[in-house]
């Protein structure tokens, strides 16, 4: 089983994007592809070949769930866990997000020091891509 390396991160708020990039690249040491919106993520997924996608829920343009559906149609996304990042913390709303086929939900505000470890756990438990 190879380790988690390539994380695609979709978030519209530039400040949060900066925190995410710092957390995932500097603290976590992952290769990170930051996208400011769902459309960009859909365009860059094939080239970046993410091991995991971290996806904001409420975004202008394509919403998180809409982006997830579009991403899932790409062959490169087969078996790639998607974790939602959401400001909504109500458990029933979390359930709803999981129904879209997400592996997990990380609630904002998140701890950027723990985030790299949290998504690694999701990657392992959520059927992270294995190489034979």
């Amino acid at each position: 089983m190879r380790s988690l390396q390539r994380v695609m991160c979709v978030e519209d708020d530039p400040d949060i994007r900066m925190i995410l990039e710092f957390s995932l690249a500097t603290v976590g040491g992952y290769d990170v592809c930051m996208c400011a919106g769902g459309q960009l993520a859909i365009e860059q997924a094939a080239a970046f070949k993410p091991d995991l996608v971290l996806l904001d829920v409420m975004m202008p343009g394509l919403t998180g769930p809409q982006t997830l559906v579009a991403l899932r149609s790409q062959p490169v996304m087969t078996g790639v866990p998607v974790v939602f990042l959401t400001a909504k913390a109500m458990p029933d709303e979390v359930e709803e997000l999981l129904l879209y086929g997400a592996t997990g939900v990380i609630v904002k505000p998140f701890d950027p020091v723990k985030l790299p470890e949290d998504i690694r756990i999701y990657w392992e438990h959520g059927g992270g891509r294995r190489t034979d």
Partner: protein
Amino acid sequence: MADDITASRLHLCDLLNGLGHQAQGVDSGSAAIEQARAQAPDVVLLDLLMPGMDGFEVTQRIRELITDRWLPVIVTSSLEGEEHFIHALSQGADDYLVRPISAGLLQAKLRHYAKVLGLQSRLAAMAQRQRAIHDNIHDAVITFDDLGLIEGGNPAAARLFACDERHLTGQLVEAAMGASLPDLLVQRELPLRRADGSVFPAELALSDWTEQGRVQHTLVIRDLTERRRVERMKDEFLATVSHELRTPLTSIRGALGLLASGSAGALPKAAMPLAEMAKRNAERLSHLIDDILDLTKLEGNQMVMQLRLMRLDALLREAITTNQGYALRVGVTLGADLPEGCPQVRVDGERFLQVMANLLSNAIKHSADGDAVVVSLDWTVSHVRVSVRDRGPGVDPRFRGRMFEKFSQADGSDQRAKGGTGLGLYISRMLIERMGGLLSVESVPGEGATFSVELPRDDAAATVWTPWVLHIDNDLDSRRRLVDWLSSLCRVEGAPDLQQAQGLVSQGSVPIIIADPRAQGAAEEFCLSLKRLASTRPVILYSDGVDQSFVDHMGMQWLRKSHASRDELLAAVRSAIIKASGQESP
């Protein structure tokens, strides 16, 4: 006053004016009718025999023409006999006077009519007042009988249903409002239909009254469209606020976390506590937002519970793990007493963890460095109970009654310093109640507090043992005291002696026995009888008349009557109930 003969007309007018009335004379029936309409007199006096239109006809006409009020008509005649008077009365006249008219009789009759007319005008004023209230009230009011036939509605009802007021009257409720009679009589909120077919949400308030033995229903209807719209706006607003507040908080919290962790380079020593403090407060703000959102959902009855059969020991372990960090930071140990085999209960896992996080953080918050907080789990045949016990200062008895209320925090500077939103316990109790459980607290000031969550067992059979206490004591005051102390916990029966106690037990299930051997014959024999009566259930001796060696010899629990407090007795009975219930659990 109508009379064709001038002399008698003038005489009567003089008489009337002399009595203090204002009289107007006319010389024909037709003139009488005209004046009755134009001048609105209080009383009409008519000569029966007049050329042209006679008094009979005038009476009849007046009755036909003036319907909005009662106008007394008195007929006069000098004819012999009573037939013509009877005829006039049957035509609608109210009274008669025989000519020549006696001034005394006329005065007495007019005084009588003045009184009746006064009553009438007071009634009319009252009715008009009621009418005005009914007509001007902002809420729609519709009255119908027990068959659903509408007797009337006010203008607001006509406006609400977009129809004419008269259109409502005589219709069946189903046709007029688009809701069935039974629904209207039972429901508090219903969608109703206007005359144009549009439907609106309505709030209903029904009152019943009886009129001449027939039930009448008066329904006050309020259109909820606007209220619903405002509720929706509030929800959207809250969702937006939640998102808009959390987005900047995420950056603040994230940036501070990265600074404090040293990921962005080591901070100067003096800057570290500042970064930590700022981070902690960003977290606190985020909890406050969570609490306010929860509160809004709970109070708006919009919280969706995902109830599933779950094992609480697993959830409790998770809760302890999650809160371990906080406990370690403040030097508090988290202990757990989670026996195997706990029956499953139906809970919303996330929400249960939220309650536990609240109870645990409260307990940790109020513990001193080096103290322990213990989470334990036990169960009876019907319930599973989770307890969180701390050894902190306990709950101030004055605050105890309010501690589950909104925004309640025990006042006083030291408690203030502990922080918190004052919403946690209120939200926790509501969440547990939504899961069908109870959240309660027991505390001895200075010795800590125990918060208990009791949830119904999913497998609890309908025929579970209902705990009850049988108190055998020949002292009536003592029996009364125990009923007073324990009846909040379970049913308590008292008996002065063994014989009556046996009678009570043979009728029903086996109780937990509390007894005083004093004045019951030989103590040992009495206690052996108690054991037989109690079968496997615990027996508590509540007495000043025995000693430790006797109690040990009998293998019973002992509380000194003169020493044991209400709380001690409650605790003893509660643990006996749990023990007894455990015997019955599968």
